[in-house]
Each structure stands twice: as structure tokens, then as C-alpha cells.
């Protein structure tokens, strides 16, 4: 077990006042709030800060933490007193309670001090209560949204066993991802959340859909965008091309005199659904390199044949 230096987490000295603790936390919380922050490790940092603040904001828990001594270093191996962890309940960040990829409940520090600061209180103490709803994210590919898919979702959740110990339980759910799903939408799986208490029914599981970045396609709601590189003569003279799309491929007529950035809309070829999206083919012109005498000669001929000043507007 590693020692956690809560003061260091919040960037504070050990003699910080309660006011300083509060303002340090507030400042960092705004910076690293996972819904606001773009930092890669925001979620982890935010959890650590929350844990540190919960202990330090209360003078009593702060005092018992301080009793461990000032000589510990962050990450140093640490042996907690025996049986200090009996009977705690897990808590955590509201909507993500004990769930998802980065949860690390069962930690001594969170148990030791978290318990005293009101983690895990509330509904579960009632005789009968509906289980908690759980939330997680599921990553899918664009193609899954076109065709529908079955995806295995691995979830890890802490459960309290018969002896009052917290164990991590892994479970895998096979979920039917419906055709036409879009990023940011949520799936509800009834009864797959936390177990009910007494005769209360189980909570639900909510899965938020996230698309993995696609090497070719860009997605905006129901619409899908793809870049199509063209040779200058294809853009100038028009062409008939076979273009790969998520559902296979299409024959596409490129109109003559097309310019870079021109969008060709393929109606109804976006993400399917009640209102099917469109697929936009965005034209891009790629110049052939003038790396042979032949190519240079061809460019010179073009220069002579076409009086063209691209900077006429400057």
C-alpha cells in the first residue's frame, strides 16, 4: 500500500489554513473537473483531489490524518494498522459510483477517512430500496452504427462480500448496439445496475456511446464526412470514380470545374435512423510532384496554355 500525501495532491504545505485548503481545492477542481477539463488525466486527478479535500476540509479527519506523521512521502510503502478497514462502505463520484475503468475503491485511505466524511451514506441503509443506477461508456466504431452490433462490455464494480470485505467483481455484458446509434446517446439496460436492497428492484445501467476516431470518416451527429483526393485534371474536367463509403462503395460523378472544399452530398448515406443522416464527400485536389523532366515540361505547357493568376484578388 502506498502512502498518499493529501497536502501534496492539493499543492499545499502541512500548515495550510482551512481557508487555503478550500481555495486550493476549488481552484484545482475547476481546472481538472472531468466534464470541463481537456487534460488527459483529468478524471484521475480530480478523484485524487476530491479524496484529499474530503479528508483535509474537516478539521477532525485532518487531525487524524496528520497523526500518521509528517515524514511519509507520497507513494511510499505504507502499512495500515490491522482491522482498520472493517465495515466500510464504498462511495465515490456521484454518477460514476464504483464503476468504470478507473475506479479504484478499496483503498485504505479512502476507507479510513472517507468513511468518516460521509461516503456511502443514504439510500442503501433503508430496509427496501431500489438499487443505484450505474453509468459507463462504451466505445464503438462508425460501422457499428450503420449495421448495429453486439458488443461485449466489461465492467468492474466493487461489491461487499459476506464478511464485509470489499471485493472487485468483473462482469461482462453482451450488449445489442442498435443500428442508427449516435455519439453521445445513451442506452438503458433495465435492471443491470446496482442490486436492490431488501425487496427493492435492481437499478438500471446507462451506457453512453462514444465513437472511436475513424481514420477516414469524420462524424457530426447523423452526418458523415469523407475527404476525396483528386488529381487536378479530375477536378477540372470532371470524372466518374468509385468511392468507398461505410456501407460499401458508390459510383460518383465529379462535376467539371470542381474546386477544393466542394462538398458532394449523398443523401441518406449517413448514419441510418428515423431521420437518416447524409454523407458528404469533400473534394481535395492533390498536385502531382514535378520531379521528372517530363512532369516539369507538362507544367510549363500548362503555364503557357492557361493565363492564370491565383493572386489576382490580393
Amino acid at each position, binding site marked *: 500500500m502506498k502512502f498518499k500525501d493529501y497536502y501534496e495532491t492539493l499543492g499545499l504545505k502541512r500548515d495550510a489554513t482551512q481557508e487555503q485548503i478550500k481555495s486550493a481545492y476549488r481552484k484545482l477542481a475547476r481546472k481538472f473537473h472531468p466534464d*470541463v477539463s481537456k487534460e488527459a488525466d483529468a478524471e484521475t486527478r480530480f478523484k485524487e483531489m476530491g479524496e484529499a479535500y474530503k479528508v483535509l476540509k474537516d478539521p477532525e479527519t485532518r487531525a487524524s490524518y496528520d497523526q500518521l506523521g509528517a515524514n511519509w512521502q507520497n507513494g511510499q510503502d505504507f502499512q495500515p494498522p490491522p482491522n482498520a478497514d472493517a465495515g466500510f462502505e464504498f462511495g465515490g463520484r456521484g454518477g460514476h459510483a464504483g464503476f468504470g475503468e478507473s475506479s479504484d475503491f478499496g483503498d485504505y485511505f479512502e476507507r479510513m477517512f472517507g468513511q468518516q466524511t460521509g461516503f456511502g451514506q443514504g439510500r442503501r441503509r433503508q430496509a427496501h430500496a431500489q438499487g443505484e443506477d450505474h453509468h459507463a461508456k462504451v466505445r464503438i466504431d462508425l460501422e457499428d452504427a450503420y449495421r448495429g452490433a453486439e458488443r461485449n462490455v466489461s465492467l468492474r464494480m466493487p461489491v461487499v462480500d459476506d464478511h464485509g470485505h470489499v471485493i472487485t467483481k468483473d462482469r461482462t455484458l453482451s450488449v445489442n448496439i442498435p443500428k442508427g446509434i449516435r455519439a453521445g446517446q445513451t442506452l*438503458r439496460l433495465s435492471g443491470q445496475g446496482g442490486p436492490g436492497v431488501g425487496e427493492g428492484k435492481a437499478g438500471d445501467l446507462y451506457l453512453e456511446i462514444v465513437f472511436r476516431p475513424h481514420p477516414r470518416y469524420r*462524424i457530426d451527429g447523423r452526418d458523415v464526412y469523407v475527404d476525396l483526393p483528386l488529381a487536378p485534371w479530375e477536378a477540372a474536367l470532371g470524372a466518374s470514380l468509385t468511392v468507398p463509403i461505410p456501407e460499401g462503395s458508390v459510383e460518383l460523378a465529379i462535376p467539371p470545374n470542381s474546386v477544393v472544399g466542394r462538398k458532394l452530398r449523398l443523401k441518406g448515406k449517413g448514419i441510418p435512423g428515423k431521420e437518416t443522416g447524409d454523407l458528404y464527400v469533400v473534394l481535395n485536389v492533390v498536385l502531382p510532384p514535378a520531379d521528372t523532366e517530363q512532369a516539369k515540361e507538362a507544367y510549363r505547357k500548362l503555364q503557357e496554355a492557361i493565363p492564370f493568376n491565383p493572386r489576382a484578388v490580393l
Partner: protein
Amino acid sequence: MSKTVINYLECQVVEEDIHLTLFELCQASQASEEIIISLVLEGVLEPIGQQAHDWQFTGPSLRRAKLAQQLTEELQINTPGVALALDLLERIDTLQAQLTRLSRQ
């Protein structure tokens, strides 16, 4: 560690298939009734129905309520502040999507 595999679960798309009652929204977002009601008064959530007991919340409400609950609890922002933060976050999302759409790889 124990492992359980449950086969092939059907699910509903929250945004399209279902409406949530006030109770269900509180349960799913872990926000108190008080918070949800103040979000409705602030115009952050727009349920169908006149009275609180027959409110029906559409899908996007869940995402907003969840975010609002976290912002309220973790950053101790008041309701008008949450409303502003949600609007700005959604604007950032829209701009981000536009940027992705326009960017070339």
C-alpha cells in the same frame, strides 16, 4: 475476482425510445428532486407536462441533469451558474464537432 457473463441484452436508446419521470431522472442522475426542480425553473431542463408529478423528461435531459448534479456537488456552483456552464459546454461541443468536420487529416 469472479466473472459472470450474461448473454445478449436488449437495450433502449434513452434519447429516442423513452421518457423519464421525475423519479427516474433523479434516480439515474443521482440528483435530488430539489436540484431537478430548480433546473426546470431555470429553464435548463424542459419537461413535457404541467405539474411535477406528470413531468416527462426526454433523453438529452439525463445528460444535462447528470452534468448539473456533478457541477453542483463538486464545484458548488449555484443553479444559474450551472445553467451558464451547461450552455457553454454545449457550445464547446458544437464548435469541437465543427472543427473535427473541417479539419483534414
